[in-house]
Each structure stands twice: as structure tokens, then as C-alpha cells.
């Protein structure tokens, strides 16, 4: 894992050499991958701004913040389970991240059929996630939660909820479309000559969506 550099040069020397070199600083990283990472970096800032906005709103409100554990509870077979819907959504998204990692692995083994199938399975889990989110939204709207107010407490709760989960859900939906398109191109054999790095790049986007959910889950649902 840590064998970055040949034994004689240190990490710092490698870093300086890379950044001081002609043409490109990112050796061994294709443009496609570098650009995806830079896009994800910009997306990190967007989601961070949302979450910092949420922090400010929650710190400044003089009213009680709704108890998310209860707001997102479900009664399943007569049992009242707190936050269960969100827990299931989290597990679905993690499962999809796992199948995506498998797809990347198959891609690099040139098993294009398995890679495409695993990508479609990932997209299926993504759809499942968006479906549950739609259920969650309609449930809350039915209970009277609006971007400008709600019956449980601080009115900003609705604004933050719809904005943050909406933006994340939009990312998941785009990811599903992206996955399906790339999966079909992989299946058709479009990448036989160029190699299957495209699966890894698509995977980066998908793992990022899961990564953002980790933060939303912690700060919005659990805090």
C-alpha cells in the first residue's frame, strides 16, 4: 500500500519532482480521471456550503429543532422503529457502492459482461434509494412539512430538508442515468480497445454520492 516511491527517494521528493515537471503534474492519472476528481472537488464545496448553511440555521434558531429520530420513524408490523427508513436507505447506498467497486474490478479484468451487469445492479440500488426518498418526501409533505414551516418546530427544518436531500437525490438520479449509459456502452464493446478506465471514473462519481450521504446522515439525521 505505502510503496509510493522507489526506495531511495522520499515522498516529498516525488511530490516536488511531480509538481516541478514539464507538461503535467499528475503522472499516471488520465485526463478523464483527473477531471472527474476536479468536478467532485467542486461538488464537495457545493455540498459543504449547504451543510454549513444548515449548521448556521440550526445554531441561530431560537425554536426547538424537530427530533429527526421521530420524524423519520416508521411503524412496521405494529412496531414503532425510530429512523428506520433512513437506516435502510443508508444500507442500500452502501450495498450499491460495493457492487460498483466490484464492477470496477471486473472492468480491469476485461470481464466486460460482468462489469456491465454489476453496473446495472448498482443503478438498480440507486433507483431503489431514489424511490425511498420519494416515499419519504411524500410522507413529510403529507404531514405538513413545507420549506417555510412545519408542525414539529423550527420552520427552517423543511427548507434544509428539501434542499439538501433534494440536491443529493438529484445527484443519485443523474448517477443512475450515467451508470446505465456507460453500462450499455461497456456491454456493446465500445471500450475493448481503449480499456475500462471509464468504469472506474463512473465509479468515482457513484462513490462520491455515497460519501456525501455519509455526511448528510451524520449531520442532518443523527445530530
Amino acid at each position, binding site marked *: 500500500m505505502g510503496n509510493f516511491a522507489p526506495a531511495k527517494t522520499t515522498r516529498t521528493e516525488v511530490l516536488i519532482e*511531480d509538481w516541478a515537471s514539464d507538461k503535467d503534474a499528475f503522472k*499516471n492519472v488520465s485526463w478523464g480521471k483527473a477531471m472527474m476528481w*476536479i468536478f467532485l472537488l467542486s461538488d464537495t464545496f457545493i455540498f459543504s456550503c449547504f451543510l454549513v448553511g444548515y449548521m448556521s440555521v440550526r*445554531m441561530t434558531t431560537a425554536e426547538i429543532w424537530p427530533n429527526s429520530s421521530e420524524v423519520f420513524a416508521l411503524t412496521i408490523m405494529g412496531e414503532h422503529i425510530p429512523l428506520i427508513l433512513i437506516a435502510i436507505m443508508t444500507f442500500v447506498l*452502501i450495498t450499491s457502492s460495493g457492487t460498483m467497486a466490484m464492477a470496477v474490478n471486473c472492468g480491469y479484468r476485461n470481464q466486460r459482461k460482468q462489469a456491465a451487469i454489476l453496473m446495472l445492479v448498482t443503478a438498480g440500488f440507486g433507483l431503489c434509494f431514489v424511490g425511498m426518498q420519494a416515499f419519504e418526501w411524500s410522507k413529510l409533505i403529507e404531514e405538513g412539512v413545507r420549506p417555510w414551516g412545519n408542525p414539529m418546530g423550527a420552520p427552517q427544518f423543511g427548507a434544509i430538508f428539501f434542499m439538501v436531500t433534494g440536491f443529493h437525490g438529484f445527484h443519485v438520479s443523474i448517477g443512475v442515468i450515467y451508470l446505465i449509459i456507460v453500462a450499455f456502452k461497456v456491454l456493446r464493446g465500445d471500450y475493448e480497445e481503449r480499456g475500462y478506465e471509464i468504469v*472506474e471514473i463512473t465509479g468515482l462519481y457513484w462513490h462520491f454520492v455515497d460519501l456525501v450521504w455519509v455526511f448528510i446522515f451524520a449531520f442532518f439525521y443523527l445530530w
Partner: protein
Amino acid sequence: MENGSDIQGQQQHPISLYFKVWGLLFVLSGLSYAVDYMQVQGELRWTLIIIFMFLKAGLIVAVFMHMVWERIAFVLAILLPPLCILVLIALMSIEADYTYFNRLFFFND
């Protein structure tokens, strides 16, 4: 090559590693859900949530997104800029205290 991937910069790693990380992510998610389920409150709750969150995020970025195998120049270019957000968090929380006290002072009946 030198960073454990081949000439084209491909990321090929044993599948067992992915399975281990996958399992670990499940366990960590289960633990963070348990924090809520057991109704752990106060500072212990926030500490546990933050720890599990960073462990999960770290595993995803390091293994699933292959950051541990990338060259250091690239890793730093991607992972250092988000640290600016810490400044934003600090500024906004200072401002939030001031707003909150003003609201208590002027809007409370």
C-alpha cells in the same frame, strides 16, 4: 509500477480487500444507527457520530475511490483544498452565536 498499479495507471487490487471494506462500512453504518437507536445523548453522541462518519468517509475515499494508491501530488491537489471549509465553519459559527443571542434578546416575549 511504483504505486502498485500498472503502466496505464490502472487500479487493480485483490477483490478480498473490497469485500473487507464493504463489510466494515456495513458495521460502521450499523453502529451509527445504533447510536440513535440506543438514544445515546449529549457529547458522547456527537463524538461517536463524528468518529463513525470520518471512518466511513475515509474508507470510501481511500479504498473505493483508490486514493491510497494514487501519487502524492494528485492526492494533495484533491484532498487539501476542502480544508478551506474549516475556515468557513469557524466564521459561520462565530456569527451564529451572535445572531442567536440577538434573537433571544429581541424576539423573546
